[in-house]
């Protein structure tokens, strides 16, 4: 089951979209193939289900949260799978002819498969939460499908409305499911279905029911949530045929059927479900008659039929449930075929308005016959499937009336609905195929391509077959499905055409006769309706509500996110500070912990003093940017001193190198920026100072609280294991390249990404540096003072020596890949500074991408290497060596990894600095410049 869903939901869409690039029709074939594959994958399970067993398939996922991927296939599931895949196939075939060359087939079929997969997920879910996820997926997929013609505003609005309504319903459903799960003690359907008694007895039964029903009603367009469906008719007709006849709207009733054993049988159930069903049945039937749009008529008749099914489940007797399932099948068949016929007519006439398309019998008799049979089935004419289920429905209505002591009301109401059903079916036939000549069509309609009719034909044949030989064609499936619904003993029923002169029989007769006469005498009714229809309908109101909602949302967003970035930053800061403050207050611990503090000494005082003064000076003089930069350098220096002082030599080294690299970077940037800032002080200085002070004080207190406490750390392990496990005495480095090597791998990847991102941003950037400094003084003409050039060349080997040294011993003494990499990068940058790009790039690798690549692959390879020896990723092994002069020293595979780190750091740093440095050339192309100058 999982396989089928994966095929349609995950594999299918991208595959189809991809296929579409090699000719649009491939998309159709691909979609068909995927569907068949899914059917094939499900086939054994389906057979099992047909034999009446319930199959479960569990894939452990979040078992702790009671969330597993858990699938279930029983009779009901079987029925729906058949509907989804069968009608799905037909729709795919049909759409291949329906879509014009302007429509992207890849997109269409991708969405369609997405929806198909989601729908399969819904009907195959054993776990309620999982079911809900797929449920929401169907909403999303249908949104995409309805808004397929994105250019049309009605499509967009219709889609948005559908999503809003069904989405809201989904939310309610979630609440309902959570309650239900709590009541049943599990989200597994089997448990829920088994514990119907306790659920119905539970005090929270009613709210839970209401919530779930909200979900159901919104999904299958029950009154008063029915209005989204007609507006979803802006979708391409195949979509309507699939979603709005066979599958999506049926998801709601599917859920009714699914939870029938658990929830039904209470007065609340009967009144809520039955009531909604009855009203929907009537409203849909009545309104359908007055639609001029073909698809509009079909949409409202769909609503009405869904109401009928809902009412049947509401009645709640086993037999009613059977009838409901039966009508699900029948409605799917004839309504799908009707939609397709309507699509053909639309396709051939370029219009769907029944006031203009008349007398098509002459032009497309074949289609006409199909449509006539289908709509006859919809009307419930004998010898057609619609008749059978409708008669069962009438019988159930009568029975329920006697139960619920409604007297003649219920039968009368449903008969009235039947009358209207006959009337609108009749209108569909007569108004379209006779009733004069077509009016003002831009083309003369004719029969569609052969294969476009095939799906319709198949469905119509099905209608006939079911209608004439029900017991052979449909009864087995019906029994299996119904038993899946009831989860219990089947009521006895017989699918025969003739049950004798039962009240149901008379009701059918009345419906037929009344319907015909109603249609003949329709003119005055149309006028009345036209007058009524001028009042804004439900859809209009809901639409306005939605619009207002979006306006509010926009306002809130604007309110919460100010235009100016500093203000945004301010808000973030304030929020963080309030959080911290509340946390601190709740903790209510002493500020100073028990740890004995270190004595202050002169050095500490002086360094702190230097740090403080430098930092403050940076802030005071930040307008003179170069000055601020030098002061920042001092700050960095002192920070690294602090690291040295508190025994973190590696940090000190890194800090120092990064310090200089940053200064170079900022100088490069400063060249393109104003040197000074106007003295104009922003009005927020005081406020910002206040915030800054608060933040500082907060941090200071926090730091002190931390420092004055003894904290236990997991480092004991690292300290013990460093030598035996990692073969290194420098624990920090061992942690980096060995114990937490995976993190380091991630970090160098980030570094590489940042570098590449910067390189990408440099592309096509236009910035001209000034020709003279801020005082209008021309630049010094002497590019590379010889003294500097020569001596820095002299320094290069020394620096490289140092960096190699640091890299080698990194595992044992302070150092390692990061630091060595930075030193090398700085040494090379020094050449760029002193000798210029041309000189340097003539002697050095010009593009640094390959350095990064090499480093990353080396690091990864080292990690993978350990896999070869069946160790986990990045397991290190080491070997003691004795090198003269360097001393006793060991070669750990982790050092290869460190080499990778080294390469990445060098590459990234150089890539960033050099390319920013070369930016102000017209288009930044370091390589060619270099060649020019060499």
């Amino acid at each position: 089951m999982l396989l089928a869903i994966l095929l349609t939901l995950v594999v299918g869409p991208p595959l189809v979209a991809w296929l579409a690039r090699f000719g649009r029709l491939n998309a159709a074939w691909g979609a068909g193939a995927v569907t068949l594959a899914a059917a094939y994958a499900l086939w054994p399970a389906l057979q099992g289900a047909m034999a009446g067993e319930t199959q479960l398939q569990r894939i452990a996922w979040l078992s702790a949260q009671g969330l597993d991927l858990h699938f279930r296939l029983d009779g009901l599931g079987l029925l729906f799978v058949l509907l989804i895949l069968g009608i799905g196939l037909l729709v795919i075939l049909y759409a291949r002819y329906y879509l014009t060359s302007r429509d992207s087939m890849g997109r269409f079929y991708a969405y369609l498969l997405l929806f198909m997969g989601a729908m399969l997920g819904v009907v195959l879910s054993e776990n309620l939460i999982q079911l809900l996820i797929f449920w929401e997926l169907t909403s999303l997929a249908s949104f995409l499908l309805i808004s397929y013609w994105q250019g049309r505003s009605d499509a967009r609005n219709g889609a948005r409305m559908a999503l809003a309504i069904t989405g809201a319903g989904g939310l309610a459903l979630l609440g309902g499911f959570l309650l239900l799960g709590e009541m049943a003690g599990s989200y597994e359907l089997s448990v829920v279905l088994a514990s119907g008694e306790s659920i119905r007895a539970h005090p929270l039964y009613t709210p839970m029911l209401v919530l779930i029903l909200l979900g159901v009603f919104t999904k299958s367009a029950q009154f008063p949530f029915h209005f989204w469906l007609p507006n979803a008719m802006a979708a391409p007709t195949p979509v309507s045929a699939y979603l709005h006849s066979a599958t999506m709207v049926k998801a709601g009733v599917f859920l009714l059927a699914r939870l029938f054993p658990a929830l039904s049988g209470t007065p609340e159930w009967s009144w809520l479900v039955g009531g909604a069903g009855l009203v929907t049945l009537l409203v849909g039937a009545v309104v359908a008659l007055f639609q001029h749009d073909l698809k509009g008529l079909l949409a409202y008749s769909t609503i009405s039929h869904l109401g009928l099914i809902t009412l049947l489940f509401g009645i709640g007797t086993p037999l009613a449930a059977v009838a409901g399932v039966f009508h699900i099948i029948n409605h799917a068949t004839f309504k799908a075929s009707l939609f397709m016929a309507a699509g053909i007519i639309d396709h051939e006439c370029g219009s769907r308005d029944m006031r203009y398309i008349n007398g098509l019998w002459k032009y497309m008799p074949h289609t006409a016959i199909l449509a006539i049979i289908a709509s006859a089935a919809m009307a419930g004419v004998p010898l057609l499937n619609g008749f059978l289920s409708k008669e069962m429905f009438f019988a159930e209505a009568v029975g329920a009336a006697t139960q619920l002591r409604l007297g003649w009301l219920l039968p009368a109401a449903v008969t009235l609905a039947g009358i209207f059903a006959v009337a609108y079916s009749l209108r569909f036939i007569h108004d379209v195929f006779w009733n004069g000549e077509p009016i003002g069509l831009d083309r003369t309609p004719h029969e569609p391509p052969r294969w476009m009719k095939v799906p319709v034909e198949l469905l119509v044949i099905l209608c006939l077959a079911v209608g004439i030989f029900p017991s052979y064609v449909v009864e087995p499936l019906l029994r299996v499905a119904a038993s899946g619904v009831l989860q219990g003993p089947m009521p006895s029923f017989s699918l025969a055409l003739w049950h004798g002169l039962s009240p149901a029989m008379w009701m059918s007769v009345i419906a037929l006769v009344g319907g015909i006469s109603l249609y003949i005498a329709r003119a005055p009714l149309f006028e009345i309706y036209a007058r009524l229809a001028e009042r804004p309908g439900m859809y209009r109101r809901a639409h306005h509500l939605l619009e207002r909602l979006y306006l509010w949302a926009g306002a809130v967003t604007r309110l919460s996110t100010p235009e100016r970035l500093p203000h945004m930053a301010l808000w973030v800061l304030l929020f963080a500070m309030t959080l911290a403050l509340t946390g601190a207050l709740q903790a209510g611990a002493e500020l100073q912990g028990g740890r004995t503090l270190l004595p202050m000494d002169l050095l500490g005082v002086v360094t702190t003093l230097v740090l403080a003064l430098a930092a403050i000076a940076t802030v005071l003089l930040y307008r003179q940017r170069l000055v601020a930069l030098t002061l920042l350098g001092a700050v960095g220096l002192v920070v690294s001193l602090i690291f040295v002082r508190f025994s973190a030599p590696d940090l000190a080294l890194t800090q120092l190198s990064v310090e200089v690299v940053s200064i170079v970077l900022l100088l490069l940037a400063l060249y393109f920026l104003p040197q000074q800032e106007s003295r104009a002080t922003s009005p927020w200085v005081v406020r910002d100072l206040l915030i800054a002070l608060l933040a500082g004080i907060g941090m200071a207190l926090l730091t002190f609280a931390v420092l004055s406490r003894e904290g236990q750390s997991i480092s004991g392990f690292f300290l013990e294991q460093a030598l035996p496990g990692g073969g290194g005495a420098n624990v920090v480095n061992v942690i980096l390249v060995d114990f937490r090597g995976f993190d380091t791998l991630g970090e160098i990847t980030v570094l590489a990404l940042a570098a590449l991102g910067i390189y990408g941003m440099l592309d096509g950037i236009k910035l001209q540096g000034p020709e003279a400094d801020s005082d209008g003084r021309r630049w010094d003409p002497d590019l590379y003072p010889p003294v500097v050039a020569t001596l820095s060349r002299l320094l290069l080997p020394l620096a490289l020596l140092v960096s190699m040294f640091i890299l080698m011993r990194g595992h044992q003494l302070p150092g390692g890949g990061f630091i060595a990499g930075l030193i090398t990068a700085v040494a090379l940058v020094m050449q760029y500074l002193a000798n210029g790009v041309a000189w340097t790039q003539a002697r050095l690798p010009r593009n640094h991408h390959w350095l990064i690549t090499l480093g990353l692959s080396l690091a990864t390879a080292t990690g993978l290497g350990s896999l070869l020896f069946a160790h986990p990723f990045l397991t290190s092994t080491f070997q003691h060596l004795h090198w003269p002069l360097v001393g006793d020293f060991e070669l750990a595979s982790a050092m290869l990894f460190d080499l990778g780190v080294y390469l990445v750091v060098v590459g990234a740093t150089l890539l960033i600095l050099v390319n920013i440095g070369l930016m102000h050339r017209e288009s930044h192309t370091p390589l060619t410049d270099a060649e020019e100058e060499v």
Partner: protein
Amino acid sequence: MLSVALTLALAMVALALALSLWRLMRGPSTPDRILALDTLYINTIALLVLFGIRQQSQIYFEAALLIALMGFIGTLALCKYLLRGDIIE
């Protein structure tokens, strides 16, 4: 004897540090500040060396080494900026 000398020396170097900072903040010209920064770097080297002797550990020397290198490059970059504006060309 040595420890006394070390303490004295540390005090002197610390004072030197403070003085260099004063020039760094005071200016008045940018070269002054750059010079001050350079001096600050070198003072730090002195500090580290003294520290190493006092702690009797050599792990401070890499830091000293790096400061020597980095301080120079910082100065180089800053001066180049004053002279040419565009430091990598």
